[in-house]
């Protein structure tokens, strides 16, 4: 079966034709770079996204500290992850890139600060 999809790896948004059989990717065409192949495989087998959001700071100059997962997480877990993100309170100053939660939701990714918070 040929599945059409748009690659989201970069702003070009290549239109991909993905040949899928038994839930496995056989061939990807329409892409301008090799990233699309990995994207297509992930998209068919276990779609994943980097989660970006912001968490509440307490006693810091910034009320909200922007965060993201350092690797994509399974799309199916996005809302669980948001629930956790809303519970977080950061009370100590952070450098840009500091880990806020290690092995976030046991997903093998870290939740990191994307801005300095003093």
């Amino acid at each position, binding site marked *: 079966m040929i599945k059409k999809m748009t690659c989201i790896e970069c702003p070009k948004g290549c239109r991909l034709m993905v040949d899928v059989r038994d839930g496995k990717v056989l061939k990807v065409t329409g892409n301008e770079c090799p990233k699309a192949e990995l994207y297509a495989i992930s998209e068919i087998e276990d779609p994943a996204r980097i989660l970006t959001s912001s968490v*509440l700071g307490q006693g810091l100059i910034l009320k*909200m500290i922007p965060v993201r997962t350092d690797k994509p997480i399974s799309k199916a877990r996005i809302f669980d992850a948001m629930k956790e993100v*809303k*519970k977080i309170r950061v009370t100590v100053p952070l450098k840009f890139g500091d880990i806020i939660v290690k092995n976030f939701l046991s997903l093998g990714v870290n939740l990191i600060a994307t801005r300095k918070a003093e």
Partner: protein
Amino acid sequence: MKTYDVAIIGAGVIGTSIARELSRYKLDIALIEKEVELAFGVSKSNSGIIHPGTQNPPGSLKGRLCVQGNTLIRKISKELGVDFKEVGELIVAFDEDDIKELLRLKKEAEVLGVPGLKIVDKKWLEKNEPNLNSAAVCGLYAPTAGIISPYRLVYDLAENAVRNGVKIFTNTKVININRADKYFEINTSSGLFRSRYLVNAAGLFADEISGMLGINDFKIKPRKGEEFILDKKKADLARHLIFPLPSKISKGVLIIKTADGNPMIGPTAEDIEDKEDLSTSDAGINRVLASARRLIPSINDKDIIAYFAGLRPASGDDFIIRHEETCPGFINVAGIQSPGLTASPAIAVLTANILKKNGLWLRKKIIFHAHRKKTVHLFEIQLSKTGSLIKKDHAYGDIVCRCEMISAKEISDAVRRGAKTMDGVKFRTRAQGGRCHGSFCTTRIMKILAEETQMPLIEITKRGKGSEIVKEDRVND
């Protein structure tokens, strides 16, 4: 329970003018308003024109009070520090029939005592109003027309009235009124008030208030007007207020200069039923653009940065200002549509006289504070003056609204002087009223309001309960 000498229902420009006028005398005065802030009814959508007195039939209350008001407002604006600019108005004629009509208007206005009127020719128009449609053949020029900020006038009148002892009650809706033996019992959403005299300045709802005392011989019919505000960049679009010839029900679509500098085009005039319908329409904007372009063809709809609708509290052809013999002590001040803003100071004096005639003893206070300190608006003053203000108070250099150049100091002052809502801040300062429409400054203004009033951010409203800006704060999760 305290018995006030006079209770006034409605804190628009009429109610506050009457309250301030009466505050010269040794009286206990209560000013009662159903909205969360003053001027949130009819007055908030006023065009801000101080009419010279043209376009009113001779012998009308409107005509007489308009001409008187045009004189009185100058003194009041100086006392209160609200800028009044005498910009003059032009009523424009396009053909022979129009000229006849202009001459008739001129004659009527002269009978009313409107000063300085003259017919100006094409040459004059070309020189003094360069963007005007070149098809205009001549105009009636009335030099005494001017502009004022309608809301700032109300807020400053009220502030001065309070200084002189008037008590203001907002969020106070009248539920019913009883004429007891010696006083009125006014039952409101925030409790019972008693007063010996009662003035009804309830604008759109004046008929309902009057009806509570059994006087049902007039109805307020809302007449909607849609107005469209242009970018301040176009401040020089017109040098005068420009009018077409008036129709039966309105003065037509005008080119309006405003005290804030933004030109405005409108209003439409449409009789409607719903006293709360403030919606604008596609038909309205199309009509206003077409009519305004007949006066100034170069008007670009891309310059429209805001629009709104207001309701004129119309009732018949003239104002209704009278003591009700069947209900002694009750004064109706109703049907105050255009030129109500201009006439407001004269209406206040007339109302005081009516009260006096009906037994209210007007004893002058030994000290009446006629003056208030002018409110600072950075957009009105020279940069050098701004520089020295910033030295005195750093917060003048902290610009919150970048489109209209309004500082944190002006906003916190507005809140300290009574603004409780985002609209209240906008009407007092113009912050959020510019071309970005609050995109950049909303959050900062919310924070200043929250800080000054000790309100949580989620309780900050646009214009009172039900109009909260945001639904949730992460802090409360």
